[in-house]
């Protein structure tokens, strides 16, 4: 008997270049997702898609629910933001953070999302304060673990302890596959070669990333960013120094795919991050087959929200077409497991 498998889906964040460029409205994007069959899971970013968020205008609720019904989509996750630096002069306290996130959790319930994506800046104390809201609204809260963090990062370990103590089905994690890459996406190097960066400079960055990856060292986010910033500046990359450092340090993580098994039962949603494809249709930077096997072995049957982020360096490809390719790849792998 075949094993139950995760379901496919997409986040509208994948369409950021065309949305920001005013080429596609939110409604256009959801209609493309529905008509091309790149759901059924549908994830949106509250502060991106809804003006006035976390207040939800009535006409948005009608539009959203109507589109979901029309195309048979399934709201999977509402990405909310833990805006710790909301105020210009100081950081939010845990109580203020809980109060700030509560309406965002309620917004998820109002739109029919079973889960919200939380971010690292929401402290464990804030989550504990927020839990009763999530339980009342029946919305699960999942912390996104994003590159360069891993299941072993200090803040994730603190949450794992908190979860063990609170033991609530409304608390979980959202792996972002960018935490478990196997190399920097070749599409980064292609794009910056096209922009005139020397092959020697790109090779130096690639070699350093691979060296860190092969070692047992797992530098922190600030250490990685500091190191790659220094390296890109020393290579004289000018305006390209910051983005290239960010792509090496903050988007391509080093966690072993197998490590997701440690939190397998607490995974409530997945950001199936991808950047681009090689000639065979594979994703060269993301070990997708390994990752999906770990999830299936862990019994995960939730959504794989395809999240295309190659647009950071090349915004020109059509987002829908790239997600279609990613769904084909994901489906082939799942069928082979």
């Amino acid at each position, binding site marked *: 008997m075949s094993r139950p498998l995760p379901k496919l889906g997409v986040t509208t964040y994948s369409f950021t270049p065309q949305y920001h460029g005013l080429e596609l409205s939110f409604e256009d994007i959801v209609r493309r997702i529905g008509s091309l069959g790149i759901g059924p899971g549908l994830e949106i970013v509250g502060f991106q898609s809804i003006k006035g968020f976390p207040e939800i205008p009535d006409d948005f609720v009608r539009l959203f629910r109507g589109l979901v019904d029309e195309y048979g989509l399934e709201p999977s996750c509402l990405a909310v933001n833990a805006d710790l630096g909301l105020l210009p002069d100081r950081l939010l306290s845990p109580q203020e953070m809980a109060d700030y996130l509560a309406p965002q959790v309620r917004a998820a319930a109002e739109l029919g999302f079973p889960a919200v994506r939380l*971010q690292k800046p929401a402290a464990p104390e804030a989550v504990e304060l927020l839990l009763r809201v999530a339980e009342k609204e029946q919305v699960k809260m999942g912390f996104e673990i994003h590159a360069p963090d891993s299941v072993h990062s200090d803040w994730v370990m603190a949450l794992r302890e908190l979860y063990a103590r609170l033991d609530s089905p409304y608390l979980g994690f959202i792996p972002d596959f960018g935490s478990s890459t196997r190399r920097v996406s070749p599409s980064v190097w292609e794009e910056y070669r096209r922009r005139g960066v020397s092959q020697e400079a790109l090779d130096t960055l690639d070699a350093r990333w691979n060296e860190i990856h092969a070692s047992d060292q797992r530098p922190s986010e600030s250490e990685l960013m500091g190191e790659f910033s220094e390296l890109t500046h020393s290579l004289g990359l000018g305006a390209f120094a910051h983005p290239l450092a960010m792509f090496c340090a903050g988007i391509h993580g080093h966690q072993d795919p197998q490590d997701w098994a440690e939190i397998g039962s607490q995974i409530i949603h997945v950001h199936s991050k991808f950047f681009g494809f090689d000639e065979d249709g594979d994703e060269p930077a993301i070990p997708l087959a390994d990752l999906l096997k770990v999830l299936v072995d862990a019994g995960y049957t939730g959504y794989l929200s395809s999240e295309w982020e190659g647009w950071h360096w090349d915004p020109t490809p059509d987002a829908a077409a790239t997600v279609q390719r990613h769904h084909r790849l994901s489906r082939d792998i799942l069928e082979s497991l």
Partner: protein
Amino acid sequence: MFPDRLIVPEELGVEEDAGGATAVTFRVRLPWYRALPMDGLHLSDVAFDGRPVASDRLDVEIDGTWRPYEDVAGLRDAWWFVLDPLRVRVRGLEPVADGEHKVTATVGARVPYIVLGTEALVIKETLTRALPLNARSAA
């Protein structure tokens, strides 16, 4: 993010300011993917035809009201939505002739969920763009 979109490619607006000098207006885009707090707006290195413009000669239009740029940091509960261009006014210019004018601006905002130490990250992008002015149609 999306630095090429920072200054909207469209005609400059032109008006006479309170002191009888000329003001021009243009629109800028938020260089980020989601709404950000308006009190974290950053405008710097603004230049018109290569001449630097001090920040006390800049206004921005928020919810239909012009405000001095230097007052924006004191606003609360205002957001810059990702799809909404922000209109900027440069005051105190000499009369401006028809034709193309070079506008330069660094535009940014505080990203409140990316906190480094005790401070939120401020993202910025810079662009110079030639914008056309046709005083008759702008008036």
